[in-house]
């Protein structure tokens, strides 16, 4: 009986650790290794040639990479901020409603059920220059007689993608913030109104600090899968035309699968992973700070 019994928590966590190691960790190690080789799918032996940081150097000196990187950060920053603000607005609107709130809440969850790829197709259809809803409406209203090239012009395409992304994710924020609003105790709000606060001041000084943790949870959850945006972009423009809407993810996908340059793609993949990790860790820390502020820390 000298064998050590592993602690219960370890046994309980083991399945999760095993599966994550097998499906995430090992492939990531492989891709880490391959990012130091000139691996091409078409030439398996290239996997065994070590070229050091050449791929990273190539990426970091590539104008295409940096444009895609910058555009990705720009899109994420704009999208997350706008989604948060609009989600907050939507939640406040719904929270004020006194009857029929259940129905509104259900409608609000509608976009969450849509697969990102579906959102991509949906908005590709809606922004289609020929048969899309937007151009049809603009033309019928007599606002324009041209077919506006929503998905072809670089700036317009960025805007269209932003709209699609926001449509799909704003409700996550709205739902979570609404839940936060429900959890705000009534008493301090009433105390503030009696203390002389205008509705705006009450919101600013009482409600907002209370829902801040919920906002950060929403941001953390969202940043966990910001890369969902890849599906949308891939369908709507796939980075094109002529790289005008290229994001990090579409660049990686194309380099890996179309050009079959796996090593190079994996090197860029790693950079995208660090980007995602940065956003996530940032919001988790904010979340803990906000919780501490309210004395809710565990």
């Amino acid at each position, binding site marked *: 009986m000298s064998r050590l019994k592993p602690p219960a928590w370890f046994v309980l966590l083991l399945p999760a650790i095993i599966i994550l190691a097998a499906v995430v960790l090992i492939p990531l190690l492989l891709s880490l290794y391959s990012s130091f080789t000139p691996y091409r799918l078409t030439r398996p032996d290239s996997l065994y040639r070590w070229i050091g940081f050449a791929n990273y150097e190539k990426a970091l000196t590539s104008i295409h990479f940096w444009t895609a990187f910058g555009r990705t950060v720009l899109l994420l920053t704009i999208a997350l901020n706008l989604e948060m603000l609009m989600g907050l607005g939507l939640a406040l609107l719904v929270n004020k409603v006194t009857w029929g709130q259940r129905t509104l809440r259900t409608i609000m969850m509608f976009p969450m059920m849509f697969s990102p790829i579906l959102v991509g197709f949906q908005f590709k259809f809606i922004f289609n220059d020929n048969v899309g809803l937007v151009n049809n409406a603009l033309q019928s209203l007599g606002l324009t007689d041209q077919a506006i090239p929503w998905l072809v012009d670089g700036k317009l395409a960025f805007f269209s993608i932003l709209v699609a992304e926001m449509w799909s994710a704003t409700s996550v924020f709205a739902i979570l913030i609404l839940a936060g609003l429900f959890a705000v105790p009534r*008493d301090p709000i009433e105390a503030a109104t009696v203390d*002389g606060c205008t509705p705006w001041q009450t919101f600013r000084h009482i409600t907002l600090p209370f829902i801040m943790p919920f906002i950060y949870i929403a941001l953390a959850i969202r940043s966990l899968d910001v890369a969902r945006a890849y599906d949308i972009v891939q369908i709507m423009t796939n980075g094109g035309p002529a790289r005008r809407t290229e994001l990090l993810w579409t660049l990686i996908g194309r380099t890996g699968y179309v050009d079959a340059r796996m090593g190079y793609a994996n090197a860029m993949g790693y950079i995208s992973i660090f980007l995602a990790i940065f956003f996530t860790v940032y919001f988790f820390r904010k979340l803990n700070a906000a919780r501490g502020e*309210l*004395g809710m820390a565990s």
Partner: protein
Amino acid sequence: MAQVQLRSVVKKYGSLEVVHGIDLDIADNEFVVLVGPSGCGKSTTLRMIAGLEAISGGEIAIGERVVNDLPPRHRNISMVFQNYALYPHMTVRENLGFSLKIANRPQSEIDRAVEEAANILSLSDYMDRKPGALSGGQRQRVAMGRAIVRHPEVFLFDEPLSNLDAKLRTQMRTEIKKLHQKVQSTIVYVTHDQVEAMTLADRIVIMRDGHIEQVGTPLEVFENPVNTFVATFIGSPPMNLLPATITNGEVAIENGPSVALPSAFEGKVREGQAVILGFRADNLMPRGHSLPMEGQHAAFDMKVNLSEPLGTETLLFSSLAGREVQAKMLNPRPVSPGETLPFQLDLTRCHLFDAASEASLR
């Protein structure tokens, strides 16, 4: 100058009316307590005065000004809530100064007002703690401090002591009374505890089911309850009530002895009228253990079922005419259950209520 006036104020939640047109005049600097069983509409009334609930009918005026549609911030009031309603993310200092900061007062003035409030309520030692790190009594004091920094015209209190333990409650009661003398403002105070009401109020407003039953000074409502509800609600133990009939000019207790008609009620009852005889335990005592009863009184024997010694007096539970009756014994001696004692009832302190309307016949 801040008198508060309610004129036929009605509150409806949908089709459910919970306050049925109440009228009330509160004078400047008066301490008025709304008391009544839970669910009778006290909080609703208070919140309508505060502007936290819209009124469904009638008129509320603070000072000379009708405030029906004004939001709370334009009413110059402050309020202390049952659960304190402190801002959990602010320190005690920030909690106290919040209303002044919102009003854009200069920092020096805020500091002075906060300091003053902290001194009045002995909060100076906890100024930089957050509410989460305070005890119940301390939170209660912060809540009161927050109310007084603004020097409002009217203070509203909604059961501010109900979450404190018994000892602290008595202590805070005294502090609130002192506070009123210091700040000289109108106070409207809600409680379901009649002891609190009696000890604090200049005037008591007794409410039931969204109606005002009686308004008066503590002694008035104790001595002259307008109906059996007020009679049993005010005073502890509650007034004994026994059904009776006026027979041959006497009050014949149902299935029990007859007692003489108290002289105060002569000419106010008619023969054969069904009435309710009411008297407090203080006016029913065993012979030899009672106050001297010089006026009109009655005497009968009762068996004692249970006795509760309270020190200077003992509370006796007996039965009269098949109903439980509470009596008091001064200079107590031990009483064993089942012992029969000769009792004296002071008729000058008895009440008669009409059996049908339950209203006082005085």
